[in-house]
């Protein structure tokens, strides 16, 4: 036998492709996916059909037009669709920078499926959920250590909602002090998640956006120029999307505090900072962590998730309630917070995610958390070093000083070959890899953002780098390959027309597709 030698630098990959119809196309009248429980015979004989009590105006006239499909076929359909989805468990998921796609420990998934967790009702008597409350409280204690904050709420259902909750606290705080109307501006930066600005507006604020200086740092002079008695709050991430750590962060918070504003910290991604530096020392009044990023809760196609919201002792009374407290004997829910903003999400938030993150922290311990941060930074700097060597790629702004991620640019390659970052994105799929450009607006031209986290080995990183290298080679030598990608994905290129933006054409549901596309054809 000739030895099997794999010389290809990139993976010989093909994604599963099942060409599954839309679920409605599987309809077969009379089939059934599951039998629901029917009322006991005695119940029926006592009560009758149950539905005739419904007032005529409220009785549904015909059955909803759902498909009828046998159980095996429903299962097969969704299983096939699952194989057509590139979860982070399956690839070297470092191309979705800012999202902290780290390893999701399987033990945690097993723990959350415990009926003692899954089958708890949020209004149960405190005495019957002591274990759950203890977990929440323990996570709170850990989070306080990690951030230096004084209390946490796990109610927000993601980073965006945590940002919203913080903006709400900013408002409530100033209102409480009689400055609610006067302070109507929130300052943010352009290299931040769009939700920072967006949630401030939801809360009625005017948004002031700082642009970076030529080195990529938020511009301290500009900040000084915009703070005033109208400043309600300042929200920033550090590092921002560029991965550059702003070493003057404490000066920033000082300036804002001096103007009477609240400083709140977007630590959705704090992966390079665990045990290294904290919100408190940097002068923040509040911060949040995305448990589904730094703290290893899975992303689940986009939630449910948790934005763990921490505040200083002084702001504790503003938190959404209830929060968990412990008197040394018993855990309880405190819903009597004097200035509480009320609620942002039903009941207690996403308990599974709370449990997962607590489990993750306990699996690492304090040393492990520091190792997470250091390795994430090591991995990122390794990538940073290598990616810059790829023809056509660069990392704008200051040299070095990148922590857990970097925003790169294909500007040069695009201008030399016409291959854009979107082309690269499609081509990466052919190697079984995920690649994301960046948030809009593209301040960095032709951007892409890589964040390797601590979860990937050097071999994994090299695989990713090789794929980028190969695409660069293709772009310079045979750009059509890249232009026409993907080839090994579940589907080919979408037709570039206005199907998604033209109200005449867009189809958000199958019934719209039937009305707009199928019916006209059938009539003809």
């Amino acid at each position, binding site marked *: 036998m000739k030895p099997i030698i794999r010389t290809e630098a990139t993976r010989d990959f093909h994604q599963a492709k099942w060409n599954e119809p839309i679920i409605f196309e599987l309809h077969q009248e009379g089939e059934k996916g599951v039998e629901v429980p029917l009322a006991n015979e*005695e119940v029926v004989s006592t009560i009758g059909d149950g539905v005739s009590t419904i007032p005529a105006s409220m009785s549904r006239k015909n059955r909803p037009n759902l498909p009828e499909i046998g159980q095996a076929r429903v299962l097969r359909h969704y299983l096939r669709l699952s194989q057509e989805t590139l979860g982070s468990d399956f690839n070297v998921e470092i191309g979705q920078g800012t999202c902290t796609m780290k390893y999701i420990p399987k033990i945690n998934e097993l723990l959350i499926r415990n009926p003692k967790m899954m089958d708890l009702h949020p209004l149960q008597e405190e005495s019957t959920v002591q274990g*759950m409350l203890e977990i929440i409280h323990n996570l709170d*204690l850990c989070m306080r250590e990690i951030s230096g904050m004084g209390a946490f709420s796990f109610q927000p259902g993601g980073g965006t909602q945590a940002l919203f909750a913080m903006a709400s606290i900013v408002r409530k705080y100033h209102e409480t002090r009689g400055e609610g109307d006067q302070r109507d501006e929130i300052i943010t930066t352009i290299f931040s998640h769009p939700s920072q600005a967006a949630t401030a507006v939801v809360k009625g604020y005017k948004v002031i956006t700082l642009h970076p200086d030529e080195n990529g740092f938020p511009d301290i002079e500009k900040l000084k120029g915009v703070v005033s008695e109208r400043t309600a709050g300042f929200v920033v991430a550090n590092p921002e999307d560029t991965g550059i750590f702003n070493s003057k962060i404490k000066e920033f918070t000082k300036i804002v505090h001096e103007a009477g504003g609240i400083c709140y910290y977007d630590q959705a991604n704090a992966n390079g900072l665990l045990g290294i530096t904290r919100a408190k020392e940097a002068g923040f009044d509040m911060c949040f962590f995305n448990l589904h990023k730094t703290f290893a809760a899975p992303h689940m196609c986009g939630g449910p998730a948790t934005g763990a919201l921490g505040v200083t002792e002084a702001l504790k009374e503003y938190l959404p309630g209830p929060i968990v407290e412990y008197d040394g004997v018993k855990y309880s829910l405190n819903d009597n917070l004097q200035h509480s903003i009320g609620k942002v999400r039903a009941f207690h938030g996403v308990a599974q995610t709370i449990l997962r993150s607590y489990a993750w922290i306990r699996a690492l311990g304090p040393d492990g958390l520091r190792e997470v941060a250091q390795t994430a930074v090591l991995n990122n700097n390794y990538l940073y070093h290598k990616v810059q060597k790829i023809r056509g790629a660069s990392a704008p702004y200051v040299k070095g000083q990148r922590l857990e991620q970097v925003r790169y640019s294909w500007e040069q390659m695009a201008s030399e070959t016409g291959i854009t970052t979107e082309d690269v994105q499609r081509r990466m799929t052919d190697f079984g890899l995920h690649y994301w450009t960046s948030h809009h607006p593209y301040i960095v031209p032709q951007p892409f953002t890589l964040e390797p986290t601590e979860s990937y080995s050097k071999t994994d990183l090299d695989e990713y780098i090789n794929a980028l290298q190969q695409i660069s080679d293709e772009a310079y030598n045979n750009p059509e390959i890249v232009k026409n990608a993907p080839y090994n994905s579940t589907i080919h290129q979408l037709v570039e027309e206005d199907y998604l933006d033209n109200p005449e054409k867009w189809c958000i549901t199958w019934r719209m597709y039937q009305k707009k596309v199928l019916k006209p054809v059938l009539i003809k």
Partner: protein
Amino acid sequence: MTKKVHPYIPNMVPKVKEEMLKVIGVENSMELYSCIPEELQLQEEMNIPKALTEYELRRHIEGLLKKNISTNDYINFLGAGCWQHFVPAVCDEINQRSEFLTAYAGEPYEDHGRFQSLFEYQSLLAELVDMDVVNVPTFDWGQAAATSIRMAARINGRKKVLIAATVAPERTKIIANYGSPELEFSNIAFDLDTGLMDLDDLKSKISNEVAAIYFENPSYLGFIESQGNEISVIAKEHDVLLVVGVDPISLGVLAPPSHYGADIVCGDLQPLGMHMNYSGGQAGFIATRDEETFINEFPSRLFGIVPTIKEGEYGFGDVAYERTSFAQREKGKESVGTQTALWGITAGVYLSLLGPEGMYELGQTIMQNSQYTVKKLNKIAGIQGSRIVSPFFKEFIVDFNDTGISVQTINEMLLEKKIFGGKDLSKEFPEYGQCALFCVTEVHTKEDMDCLIEALEDIVTK
């Protein structure tokens, strides 16, 4: 002793680490932190317990969880925004699939399956609510209602909002929080005995400044609001948009709000295949007609279908992406982020499994069971099975006033009998005195219900 390489951190291997540091050109990994001023560097060790191995972790967490008593251990009659329903095993199988569990925000190419299943979810729920447009799920009912109302206000440019006083207080808080400072809320009174909206009060408050009316059906208090058409007529007279919150599991038997004039429909997906998870199963939806003015006000993602360059193949993408905060930051519509996509997929699986007949039968079973319980409760001296006389779906207010025992005491005694009694309403709705909101669904066997009856008989007669 050398540090142990953690199973989650492969590059802790010293040799590899060194190699990488060499490539980078630094001596040790702390050098990479030189950009962090010393005063910001944490000096002390965090007060977090030492690492546990996987087995220790399991013992630790399972030990904590054992302190809980679940609805699997006791019979549960709590609802009030989070409900115990039958979850088909296929739902769990699909939402535990590693691919779905760990995907995030991929592109149409590598995540075709995610896009398709969410498009299908949108389409399935659209049939249930009988409207054309459904979004990728949002956080929960409360936030979906808040956004629905904000959407209405943006559409007609008005600021006043009328809210039925029977709306769940928790949701009212969320709505108020999302609505302030822009919107101005007032309550619409209701009739204590029927629960129904006081149409006179509505008429007295409605005006051309009102953006939206919001009520829920079945209501938080369980009864069915049968005046949908009347409310709608009043709303239309003032070009007010009608926003209705709904428990989707009722829609196999109850008319969807679109049938009585709702412009925007919202609600919670949790009943459709999600375990309660101490409230981790909530997920919100918003549905509208296929009108540009509506679609352009959605903050959430909306996936649409697109053909690919290959005949017979299709893909998906974001409809009207430009309206979102992802595209426009503060100029986008509200904000979008990680919400509850996996529950959308799960709800899609659920609806695919149940189909039209299943949804009907389920609604029927629920109504039969809940009516049975009320009927039996009525036989207990001092207890009124349902304080509200209107028809109800799965929840109802049990009136304990005549027993002379407080709900709190009753619930404590029920707990001793391994029953989670209904939610005490005495704080939220003091006008009802000692009443509790009970929830009965298809998960309750006759034995479960009889067990409650017996327990209450025991408590009341003792």
